[in-house]
């Protein structure tokens, strides 16, 4: 398929097996450095796909463009038929893209519960949120939001007793869980997870892996994952894209990627054969 044809197809936004997100020839230049070069990438609906690659390969930079935090120097990103290449982050969130951050970004001095409730408000941002907030119905709405927030905490495996803790007092692994709960609160179609299991031990990592699989299976979410833990990546991904020095060097199923000499050389190392 040619570039224009597939962008157009995505732009039509039909729900019939077309990718949820299509990136074409995305390039991001920083001063003196090309962090992403000419990247073509698609996320099929209801799939779990992963991006892997060495430290500094450009994975988070790519994420930042999908979520509107950065904008491509050139190239296009189309989400459900809408070109979001130059759309600000809160509008991208409003369209249904939610994310977590590699360096945890919680409201450290707010409670755990409040962090999740704030996540919900992302979707209400913009002109009409203020209006809604002034309406009498706000209490019922808040009560419902709170009920939902408790549900999300449970879903990610945070004890109810932690809900009134300040976020900064949680151990690192639990802060990661909270980030996921907050992202889910906006009710996204596409969830971007940047190293969700960093700082977790193998048992906890397994739980998170199962959880990610459930998001797709039970909640029909589409998930894009960045991870350095190959057990996680190989376990849940339908497809894997590999970046190295800002370029896509491989793409395929877990089995294909695991056996790819270039990926072993650049990224996996000995572990691949272990």
């Amino acid at each position: 398929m040619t570039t224009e044809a597939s962008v157009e197809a995505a732009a039509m936004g039909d729900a019939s097996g077309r990718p949820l997100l299509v990136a074409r020839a995305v390039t991001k230049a920083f001063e003196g450095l090309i962090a992403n070069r000419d990247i073509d990438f698609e996320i099929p609906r209801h799939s779990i796909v992963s991006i892997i690659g060495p430290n500094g390969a450009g994975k988070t930079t790519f994420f930042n463009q999908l979520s509107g935090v950065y904008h491509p120097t050139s190239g296009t990103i189309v989400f459900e038929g809408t070109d979001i290449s130059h759309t600000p982050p809160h509008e991208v969130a409003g369209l249904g893209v939610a994310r977590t951050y590699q360096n945890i970004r919680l409201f450290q001095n707010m409670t755990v519960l409040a962090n999740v409730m704030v996540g919900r408000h992302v979707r209400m941002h913009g002109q009409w949120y203020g209006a809604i907030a002034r309406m009498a119905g706000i209490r019922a709405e808040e009560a419902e939001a709170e009920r939902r927030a408790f549900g999300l905490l449970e879903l990610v495996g945070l004890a109810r007793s932690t809900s009134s803790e300040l976020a900064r007092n949680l151990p690192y692994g639990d802060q990661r869980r909270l980030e996921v709960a907050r992202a889910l609160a906006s009710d996204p179609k596409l969830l971007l997870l940047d190293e969700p299991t960093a700082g977790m031990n193998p048992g906890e990592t397994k739980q998170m892996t199962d959880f990610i699989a459930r998001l797709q299976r039970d909640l029909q979410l589409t998930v894009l994952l960045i991870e350095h833990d190959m057990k996680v990546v190989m376990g849940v991904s339908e497809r894997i894209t590999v970046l190295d020095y800002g370029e896509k060097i491989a793409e395929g199923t877990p089995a294909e990627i695991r056996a790819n000499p270039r990926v072993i050389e650049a990224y996996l190392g000995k572990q691949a054969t272990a």
Partner: protein
Amino acid sequence: MTHALELVDIHTYYGKIHALKGVSMTVDPGEVVTLIGSNGAGKSTTLRTISAITHAREGKVLFNGVEIQAEKPHAVVGMGIAQAPEGRHVFTRMTVYENLQMGAFSRSGDIADDVARVYDLFPRLKERRAQRAGTLSGGEQQMLAIGRALMAKPTLLLLDEPSMGLSPILTEQIFQIIRDINGQGTTVLLVEQNAQMAFNVAHRGYVLQTGQIILANTAANLAADPQVRQAYLGEI
């Protein structure tokens, strides 16, 4: 023999939260000792108590036999204890090079050789020496946090999850670096989620559970312990 580090019945609180409930442990000169445990077990709190960033309400921290609980964090660094904290915490507005300089604040003398050594270990940091640390990738920040701790030339190095966010190849390298540093005489206390790798590099280990040491043994014995294998090595 005097231990390099000895914790005697340490109790640390955060307000009403009793995070460490009588932790006692030792690290001998030249050892690599690992501390493992689940999220929230108190591993980082233990390291922060040693660094005097958090103070224990009860108990003693002895460094080469000298009580250091009442010291200020920078004084503890000056005595020869450096920590690479969890979650990186580099100085985001400073350049890579300035961060490394900061790591050496506690000592006098020329730092050029030591900067060169860190650049040797992490060539990426050399490439990016003039980049502001806040714009480094996650893994690059991790390299910088470790490099900065090394700049203090500590006799006791505290590492809080050094492999976090590093690629598989760099994770292998980090453990090799720990071996090398230890081979050159630095004593290491290592907190890791990657327990298997930690047991491979450590001489001894402790398992912490909800603020208490529940197991202490050689690394080899811990690695073979069924309870440890199930809880921390992800085996069923």
